[in-house]
C-alpha cells in the first residue's frame, strides 16, 4: 500500500493486535479474542500529520501503542524508514535497533497528570531519555533540556520544579519536551489535548504544529474530536471496531467521504453553524468487540447494507490518490460530506 516509498517514514501492513480472553481458573484456557486492531494498513510520510479518529473500541489508542511499541503486535508488519536508509522492522528489533527505534519514535499521552512521574523534576523527566540512550549528561544535558523546554514555551527556572506545581497545559508541554528532546522523527500523540481546557487546547495545538514544521516531524495524531483532527491533519484515518474503514487526504475525507461510517461520524459532530436546526440521527452504538457482527462490522448501523455486507468482510480498496475505503458498495453509494 506504499506510494512514493522514498518519503514514507512509517509503513504498516496488516497490523493485528488481539487480546486473549481467558476463562480464568488454573488452566487459563483462551476462550476468545478481543480484536482491538484488526488488519490495519496505512503509511505516514515524512513531515505529515495523519489524524486517527474513531469512537470507543475503534482501536486507535491500541494502534498508537503498537506503533510506539508499548504493545507488541500480534501480527502484521510495522516498519520505520529512517532518512539514512535504515529500515527498522519494529516487531523484530535487535538490541541496537531498539535503541535507534526509541530515538526515532516517541509518544505524547493524554493525561498530563498521570504521564509525568511526580517524584522527578522537569530536568529529570525530560532528560531521562538522553541519559538512557547515552546521548548526553551533566551540564551538556542540562543545556539541551533547557533549550527544548524553552522551545515548548516553558522557562529554564522550571527545570528544578516538580510536576505538581504546573497546570495541565504546562504539564502537557513537559510531556511534549520529553518526547522531542531525543530528536525523534515520528511522534504518536494520543489525545494530547483532550484533558485540557478549551482555551489551552489552542496553545498546545499550535505548539505542536509549529514544532512539526521546525523539526520536520511526522505525527500520528489520535483523537475522538473531529474538529481537532481537522485542524491538525494532512490526511485522516477513520477507525471502527478495530478496523480501518477509510483513509484519505483531509479535504477529500471531509467533503467526499466514501464510507457510510465516515458520513455518519461527520454528521454527528455538533457545529455552531447548525444552531437551531434539527439533524438526522442514526441509531445504534459502536459494537461490543466481544460480539462483532458477521460480515462488515458496520452493517447493524449502515443504511446501505445489502446481502453481501452481512456475509463477507469487505477489503480495503483504493478509490483515489491516497484514498482507501473498506466497503462493499463504495462505487454504488453517494455520500454527503460536511
Amino acid at each position: 500500500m506504499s506510494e512514493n516509498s522514498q518519503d514514507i517514514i512509517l509503513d504498516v501492513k496488516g497490523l493485528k493486535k488481539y487480546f486473549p480472553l481467558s476463562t480464568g481458573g488454573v488452566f487459563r484456557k483462551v476462550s476468545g479474542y478481543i480484536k482491538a486492531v484488526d488488519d490495519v494498513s496505512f503509511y505516514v510520510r515524512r513531515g505529515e500529520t495523519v489524524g486517527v479518529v474513531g469512537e470507543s473500541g475503534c482501536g486507535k489508542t491500541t494502534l498508537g501503542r503498537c506503533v510506539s511499541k508499548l504493545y507488541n503486535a500480534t501480527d502484521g508488519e510495522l516498519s520505520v524508514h529512517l532518512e539514512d536508509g535504515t529500515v527498522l522492522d519494529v516487531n523484530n528489533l535487535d538490541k541496537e535497533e531498539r535503541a535507534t527505534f526509541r530515538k526515532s519514535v516517541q509518544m505524547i499521552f493524554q493525561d498530563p497528570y498521570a504521564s509525568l512521574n511526580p517524584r522527578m523534576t522537569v530536568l529529570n523527566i525530560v532528560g531521562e531519555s538522553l541519559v538512557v540512550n547515552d546521548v548526553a549528561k551533566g551540564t551538556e544535558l542540562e543545556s539541551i533540556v533547557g533549550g527544548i523546554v524553552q522551545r515548548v514555551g516553558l522557562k529554564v527556572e522550571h527545570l528544578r520544579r516538580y510536576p505538581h506545581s504546573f497546570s495541565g497545559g504546562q504539564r502537557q508541554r513537559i510531556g511534549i519536551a520529553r518526547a522531542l528532546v531525543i530528536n525523534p522523527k515520528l511522534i504518536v500523540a494520543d489525545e494530547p489535548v483532550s484533558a485540557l481546557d478549551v482555551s489551552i487546547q489552542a496553545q498546545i495545538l499550535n505548539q505542536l504544529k509549529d514544532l512539526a514544521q521546525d523539526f520536520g516531524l511526522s505525527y500520528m495524531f489520535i483523537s475522538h474530536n473531529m474538529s481537532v483532527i481537522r485542524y491538525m491533519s494532512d490526511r485522516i484515518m477513520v477507525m471502527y471496531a478495530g478496523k480501518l474503514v477509510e483513509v484519505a487526504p483531509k479535504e477529500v475525507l471531509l467533503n467526499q467521504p466514501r464510507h457510510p461510517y465516515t458520513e455518519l461520524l461527520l454528521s454527528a459532530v455538533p457545529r455552531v453553524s447548525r444552531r437551531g436546526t434539527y439533524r438526522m440521527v442514526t441509531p445504534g452504538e459502536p459494537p461490543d468487540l466481544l460480539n462483532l457482527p458477521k460480515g462488515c462490522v458496520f452493517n447493524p448501523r449502515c443504511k446501505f447494507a445489502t446481502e453481501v455486507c452481512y456475509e463477507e468482510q469487505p477489503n480495503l480498496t483504493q478509490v483515489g490518490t491516497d484514498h482507501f475505503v473498506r466497503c462493499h458498495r463504495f462505487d454504488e453509494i453517494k455520500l454527503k460530506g460536511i
Partner: protein
Amino acid sequence: MVEKNQNQLLVEVEDLKTYFYLHEGTVKAVDGVSFELFKGKTLGVIGESGCGKSVTARSIMQLVASPPGKIINGSINFHHYDEDGKQKEVTDILKLKPDGKEMRKIRWKDIAIIFQEPMTSMSPVHTVFDQINEAIRLHLPEVSKEESRERTIELIRRVGIPQPEVMVDAYSYQLSGGMRQRAMIAMALSCNPALLIADEPTTALDVTVESQILELIRELQNEYNMGIMYISHDLAVVAEMSDDIMVMYLGQAVEKTDVNTIFDTPLHPYTQALWRSIPQIDGEIDRLEPIQGTIPSPYYKHTGCRFYGRCEKRIEGVCNSTFPELIEVNPGHFVRCLLYK
C-alpha cells in the same frame, strides 16, 4: 395539559453567590449571577474550569456541600404552575432548608438534574427500576407499585432503551455509556419536572451517541414543554441545544444573549477570544488564536475586571481598578465589560 407554545417564566436567579470556605482561602465559585429560565426554552451555559457553571446548577438544587460551601446571597424564585398553565405560587428556593421536606418536594419533582458521569450518579447496587421507582414513589405516593413499574418501562422505552421490559431490571454496569445516560434521563423525567438541568450530559459519550442523546433531550423538551439549563464547555453542543446563552468566567456571567447574537456578534473580549480559539468542523480553517495566559487561581483576589490579565482589549488603569457591571448594551444583550458603557 399545558399549552405547548407557552414560554412562561420558570426560574428567576437573582444575584446568586456561592462561596467555598477552604483552608487555602475562599473560593468565590459563583459570585453574583442572575438569569432567567423559561418553560420550553433552553439556556445554554458555557464556560471553562472554575467558571462556576456546575456550582450554579447545584445551588439551584441546593446540592452544595455545606461545609465548605455556602450560598451566601441571592434568591432563586421558582414559579409553580398548575395543569392548566395558571401560576400557582412562587417559592424562593434559597429560603428553604436544603434537607427539608419542602426542598425535597421540589427536587426531582419540579427540577431534575442529569450529570456528566452516569456511572457515578446511578447506584451500582440498584436496578434501573429500583432507582426510577424510588423517585416515583417518593414524589407521587398515590401511584401503586404496579403502575410505577409500568410507568418506568414506558419511560425507558421513551428514552430509546431497547427491550425495556428486560432492561428495566438491569444494573447500571450492564448498560453502555449511552444507555446509562438514557436511563439517567428517564430517571430525571420520572416525575415530569418543569425544569431540567443538564450538566455536561454528553461529554463522556461518543459523538454518534451524543447526537442521539441531544436529539432525545430536544424531543422530550417539546413533549413536556420543559425548561432546560444546558451546561457545557463544548461550544458547538451548546449552540445546537440553546435558545439563549450565558457565558461565564470565574464565577460571573460576562455575556448573555440569544444564541444567534452571541455567535454572530459577540461583544465581550472573552467570548470573542473563546470563539477564535476553538477548532470547528466547518468554516474557514484559520490558525487558532489561543487566549493568552491561563485561568487564574481561584484564590486570586481581583481588583477590577477578572479577565483583565488575559484580555487583549484591556485598558490599563481602568479595567484593573474598576469592576464592570453587567449592562444591557442592546435589547436582550448583556455584557460585563468597561468597553461598553
